[in-house]
C-alpha cells in the first residue's frame, strides 16, 4: 500500500507541471484552452523522438518547452488576431496537432525502454532508487516552475496578465493591450504543458499518439481539488494548492484502482472492479461535481435562508452599512 501511495505521489508531482500549465490559462486568464490535449502529446513526442535518436534528455525537455510555447502562440494568434473564440481556437490547435504529433513520432508510439532518461541519469549520478529519482527530478522541476511563475506574476507584466483574466475592462482602461496578455499567457501555459508531456514520456518510457486524451480534465481535477483542499488566497498559495491537488488526485486514482466496489442496485449487489480504462469517466464525474459545487451550495444556502426567514440576513446588513 505504501509503495502504491509513494508511486502516486511521484507521478502526481510530474503531472503537476501539466496542472500548473492549465492553471495559468484557466485561473489566471479565465479561459479554457483545449490545445492542452494536443500540446501534451506534442511535448512527449518531441522528447521521445529526440531521445530515441540519442539526444540529451535535458535538451529534449527544452525542445518540448519550445514546441509547446509555439503551439500556444498559434492558439493565441487564432484567438486574438483572428478573433476565433478560445474554445474553438483550442480545438483547432488540438486537431491540427494530432497530425503534427504523428509526424514528430513517425509512428503511433515510440518506446524509450533501455534508453537513458533524466531519471536514469539522475539515478546514475546520485545512486538513489528509481522512484526516488522521479521524486527528486519532478520536485526540482515543479519548484523551479513555481518560483519563476511566482516572480512573474508579481512583476508589472504579471499584474497586467492577472488583471486581464480578472477584468478586461479595467485593464484596457489602464492602457494594457489585452491581446498581448492573452498571447503571453497562452505561450507560458502551453510551454509548461509541453514540458509536462516531456516529463511523463520519460517517466513511463514511451510516447503515444493517444496520450493527450483527457489531459485537460485531469488538469482541471487537480486545480479544483487543490483549491478546495488547500485554498487560493494568494498566487503562491494557489500554485502550491494546484501542485498538491495533482498529488491528491493521483492518490485517489491509485486507491480506486486497488479497491473493488460492491454496489447495491435493484435489490442485488454488483461487484465493480475499477479498470484503468474507467478512470476517465471517474475523472469527468469528479470534475463535473466539483464545477457544480458553487451552484449547488448557492441552492442550499437559498433553501436555508428561506427556512430561516424573519431573521435578519447577514448580507443585507453589510450592504446597509455603507
Amino acid at each position, binding site marked *: 500500500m505504501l509503495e502504491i501511495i509513494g508511486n502516486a505521489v511521484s507521478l502526481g508531482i510530474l503531472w503537476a507541471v501539466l496542472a500548473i500549465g492549465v492553471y495559468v490559462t484557466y485561473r489566471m486568464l479565465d479561459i479554457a484552452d483545449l490545445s492542452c490535449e494536443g500540446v501534451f502529446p506534442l511535448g512527449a513526442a518531441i522528447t521521445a523522438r529526440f531521445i530515441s535518436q540519442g539526444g540529451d534528455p535535458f535538451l529534449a525537455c527544452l525542445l518540448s518547452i519550445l514546441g509547446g510555447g509555439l503551439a500556444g502562440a498559434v492558439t493565441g494568434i487564432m484567438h486574438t488576431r483572428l478573433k476565433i473564440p478560445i474554445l474553438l481556437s483550442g480545438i483547432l490547435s488540438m486537431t491540427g496537432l494530432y497530425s503534427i504529433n504523428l509526424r514528430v513520432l513517425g509512428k503511433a508510439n515510440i518506446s524509450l525502454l533501455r534508453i537513458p532518461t533524466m531519471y536514469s541519469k539522475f539515478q546514475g549520478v546520485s545512486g538513489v532508487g528509481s522512484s526516488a529519482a522521479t521524486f527528486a527530478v519532478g520536485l526540482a522541476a515543479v519548484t523551479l516552475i513555481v518560483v519563476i511563475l511566482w516572480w*512573474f506574476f*508579481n*512583476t*508589472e*507584466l*504579471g*499584474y*497586467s496578465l*492577472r*488583471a486581464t483574466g*480578472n*477584468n478586461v*475592462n*479595467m*485593464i*484596457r*482602461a*489602464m*492602457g*494594457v*493591450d*489585452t491581446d498581448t496578455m492573452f498571447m503571453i499567457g497562452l505561450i507560458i501555459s502551453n510551454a509548461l504543458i509541453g514540458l509536462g508531456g516531456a516529463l511523463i514520456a520519460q517517466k513511463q518510457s514511451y510516447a503515444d499518439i493517444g496520450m493527450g486524451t483527457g489531459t485537460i480534465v485531469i488538469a482541471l481535477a487537480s486545480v479544483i481539488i487543490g483549491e478546495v483542499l488547500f485554498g487560493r488566497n494568494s498566487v503562491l498559495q494557489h500554485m502550491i494548492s494546484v501542485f498538491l491537488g495533482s498529488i491528491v488526485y493521483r492518490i485517489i486514482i491509485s486507491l480506486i484502482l486497488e479497491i473493488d466496489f460492491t454496489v447495491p442496485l435493484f435489490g442485488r449487489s454488483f461487484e465493480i472492479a475499477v479498470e484503468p480504462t474507467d478512470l476517465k469517466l471517474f475523472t469527468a464525474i469528479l470534475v463535473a461535481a466539483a464545477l457544480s459545487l458553487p451552484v449547488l451550495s448557492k441552492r442550499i444556502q437559498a433553501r436555508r435562508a428561506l427556512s430561516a426567514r424573519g431573521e435578519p440576513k447577514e448580507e443585507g446588513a*453589510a*450592504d446597509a*452599512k*455603507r
Partner: protein
Amino acid sequence: MLNVNSITKVFDPGLVSEKVALNRLNLTMAEGDFITIIGGNGAGKSSLLNAIAGKFFCDAGTISIAGNDITAFPEFKRAQWIGRVFQDPMMGTASNMTIEENLSIAIRRGKNRTLNWGIGKGEKELFYDQLRQLDLGLEERPRAKVGQLSGGQRQALTLLMATIRKPKLLLLDEHTAALDPSTGRKVLELTNKLVSEENLTALMVTHNMRDALAFGNRTIMMHEGRIIADIRADEKKRMEVDDLIALFEKSSKSALANDRMLLG
C-alpha cells in the same frame, strides 16, 4: 484639451434596431473644464464618453486630446491620457487582486509594462498616503482583495485609480448611480475635491439635474445624439432645476418623460 469634431456613430446600421447614438456632435473642452452632461435615456451621453475612451470607433469625425489625433487609436492606447470611472463599481477594479496591486496597475496607466516588480520602491508609502485621503480606512489593509470591498469603497478606489496618475481627461459615466444615496453623495464630494485640487479636466454624466448644476463650470444637455444646450459659467450659476427643465423642453421640443432625471 479635448476636441471632438463632428463625430457620428450608428449602431446596427440597416437593421430594425438601427440607432443613431451620436449625430455630428461637436465639443471643445479647455484645460480645467469640468463639464456635467445631462439628457434623457438614449440621448447619447454614455456613447459620447465611450467614443472618447475608444470603446468603439466612430463612423465619421475626429477626436483629439492634448493636441494628439486619437481617432484611430484603440482603447488601450488612449488610456495614457484618459482616466475613467464606470457606472458599475465592479468594472473599474480587479476584484481578485489586492488594493495595492490595483493601485500599482493604475499608477502605470498608459506606460509599458516591464518585468520589474509590480510594486516599486516607495510606492507602498505613496499608496498609504493616497488611500488615507479617501477616509475609508483602506490604507490600513492594502493587501485586502478588492472583491471584499463594498460598492462605495470600490468606486472611491476606482476614482483614486483614475486620478493617481494625473489624466489629461477624466471620464465619469454616472459613477454614483449604482450606489445608495448617502454613499453616492460621498463619492460625488470626493470627485469634486479631486477635480478641483488637481485642476482636472473632467466630463461627468449624471441623471441628477441638481448635481449637474451644483458641480462643474459647464453643463451640456444632450438629445438624440447631439448637444442641444451648452450652459456656461455665469448662466449656470443663476440657473435652477426648473429653468433647466424648461430649457430642455424648449430645446428638444419634447416633454421630459423621464422621472429619474427630475428627481434629486
